[in-house]
């Protein structure tokens, strides 16, 4: 009833092939954008636990969503299994740090975007085996990438400017007259930068996926031999998938270090983070951009809920127990989703929308 498209006519091909043809969808996107860019910053600025909300919930949500979009491009749209997301994010983070060391006067946002290209390069190198192997075997090569890059982050001391602690610390960075990163920066300002960047990059990803390259990826995912027979160049398609995916992961890693954590050590990009992103993709729904956001929200918010829900009933839960219960719930949910709804939360959302179309009737 709310969601029907009655009365919405398309008078030319351009509007018919729009990404969001239904006006209610466009309204929904507008509402979400207003929420993300206006309501949340205002809440963060004026509310008492606003800073925790921004730093602990919204900012990591945005950053993880970006990385999940990257992994989703590789796994959901191009069909290549990857366990190296954490390491690719790390490459972006360390690249951004080195770029900042060499070019401290260039705008940090440009540096973040540039560091994505370094991550893309590394992604292409470790994606080269995908031309000969696929599936589980490819997962092993990405695992190799993960461990090897982790080792590089520790051993190649040039990466963290020979600091004895092995960690990188982000100093105050000015941009457009604001302190945009570092200890003195206002969390709301940092959040706005991150949110705008994530929204812009998601828009770009959406367009790539619906274009020629994205369709080539999906053809490769469905049956790569048939795709090759139909004229899709597997080299270009697979490597571009790795490149774009690693670009997104790299930018997410740079954002993670420069805007969220303010510092990084090698554990920030270890195999546990790779698994975390994998779970976000699976639970959110493979091959779905909105699924990436949902998956990231779910996986990130779950431990917070587990921690605070019993507290509202007066039961104290230790941090260790939270983590263990978190693992159990995530593991059980993965199995549950894979058995019941392999396309994850995104499909559930789609089903909900379809039900909304005919509501209050059970079927049209």
């Amino acid at each position: 009833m709310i969601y029907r498209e009655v009365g919405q006519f398309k008078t030319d091909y351009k509007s018919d092939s729009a990404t969001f043809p239904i006006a209610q969808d466009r309204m929904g996107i507008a509402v979400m954008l207003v929420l993300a860019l206006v309501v949340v910053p205002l809440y963060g600025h004026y509310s008492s636990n606003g800073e925790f909300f921004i730093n602990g919930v919204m900012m990591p949500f945005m950053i993880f969503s970006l990385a999940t979009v990257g992994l989703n491009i590789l796994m959901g749209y191009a069909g290549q299994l990857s366990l190296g997301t954490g390491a690719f994010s790390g490459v972006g983070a360390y690249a951004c740090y080195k770029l900042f060391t060499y070019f401290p006067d260039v705008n940090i946002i440009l540096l973040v975007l540039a560091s994505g290209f370094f991550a893309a390069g590394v992604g292409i190198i470790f994606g080269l085996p995908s031309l000969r192997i696929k599936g589980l075997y490819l997962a092993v090569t990405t695992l190799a990438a993960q461990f090897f890059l982790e080792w590089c982050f520790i051993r190649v001391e040039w990466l963290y400017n020979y600091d004895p602690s092995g960690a990188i610390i982000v100093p105050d960075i000015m941009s457009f007259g604001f302190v945009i990163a570092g200890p003195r920066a206002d969390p709301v300002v940092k959040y706005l930068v991150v949110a705008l960047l994530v929204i812009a990059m998601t828009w770009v990803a959406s367009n790539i996926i619906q274009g020629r390259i994205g369709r080539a990826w999906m053809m490769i995912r469905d049956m790569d031999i048939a795709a090759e027979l139909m004229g899709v160049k597997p080299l270009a398609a697979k490597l571009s998938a790795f490149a774009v995916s690693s670009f997104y992961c790299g930018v997410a890693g740079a954002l993670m270090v420069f805007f969220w954590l303010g510092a990084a050590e090698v554990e920030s990009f270890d195999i546990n983070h790779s698994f975390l992103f994998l779970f976000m993709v699976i639970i959110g729904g493979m091959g779905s951009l909105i699924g990436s956001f949902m998956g990231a929200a779910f996986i990130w918010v779950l431990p917070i809920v587990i921690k605070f829900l019993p507290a509202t009933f007066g039961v104290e839960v230790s941090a260790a127990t939270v983590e263990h219960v978190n693992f159990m719930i995530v593991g059980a949910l993965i199995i549950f989703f894979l058995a019941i709804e392999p396309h994850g939360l995104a499909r559930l959302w789609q089903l909900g929308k379809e039900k909304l179309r005919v509501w209050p009737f059970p079927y049209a």
Partner: protein
Amino acid sequence: MEMLNSIFIAPFMDMGSDWSFFIQVLWEGFVQGTLYALIALGFVLIFKASGVFNFAQGIMVVLAVLVLVGLYELGVPAWLSLILTIGFMGLLAVGIERIVLRPLVNQHDAILLMATIGLARFLIGAGQFIFGGENRAMITEEIGLPVGASEAEMFEGVVFFEHLDISAVVIAALMVTALAIFFNKTRIGRALRAVADDHQAALSVGISLNQIWAIVWFAAGIVALVTGIMWGARSDVSFALEIIALKALAVLIIGGFTSIPGAIIAGIIVGVLEKIFEIFWGPLFGGGVEAWFAYLLALIFLLFRPQGLFGEKIIERI
């Protein structure tokens, strides 16, 4: 010139200068390789019979030995703990078959793989929840494993052979023989091989897939228990073993996913080469190369012989 010398000549000079040390390194690598092979064996069993790569094998190893040590700490005598743990692994196998495998019959390989990743996550959480995350000591002597070491004098030096390591190699050899006999000579073993070949054909001949899967996961569970005991005896029982199990992936790539002798041989190769590379070439890289050397080997194999040394050639059908 200096670099070429240090890569191609100096390590071999080091090897040649102290033969007893080299033999010691070889032995250590051999034992480590046997342990990798044991982990890989569990993977191979399940992959051979159900075609699913069991990401949860590592945590099964940890859980098995945690239950064993946990029961012992509760006061149960060692031999009874062993039997009860075997029973627990059986229950776990049946549970996994019911809850994870049965709803996902006929799904794509990648879906099953991700389901086992989810299973691994769940078991890690459950294990830490029930047993706590701290390290425990293995009840080596109580279950009858020998301790102490023997020395052998050779090449003007002394090589130490720990009795535990010797027993690890012997037990691994016995286990492989037992599994080989099981697969080739018994009716259930034949049924397992039939299921590995083609699920539908096996069903049409009257083999109960659910039973076979439960049996296979139980067998893998027993292998996991033995692996856990041997690993736990050499270093404490901790959840770090779960990450070490990932190295078995590299072993499997080199040996072939469906071959038991392949897992053993590849495990030994990986163990020996890893140790030699770490000791003699490691200082060039600043140490710590053990973390990724196995994967580098696996990568080279993947590019030139993806089915591994003993695996079946992968034929793609449209």
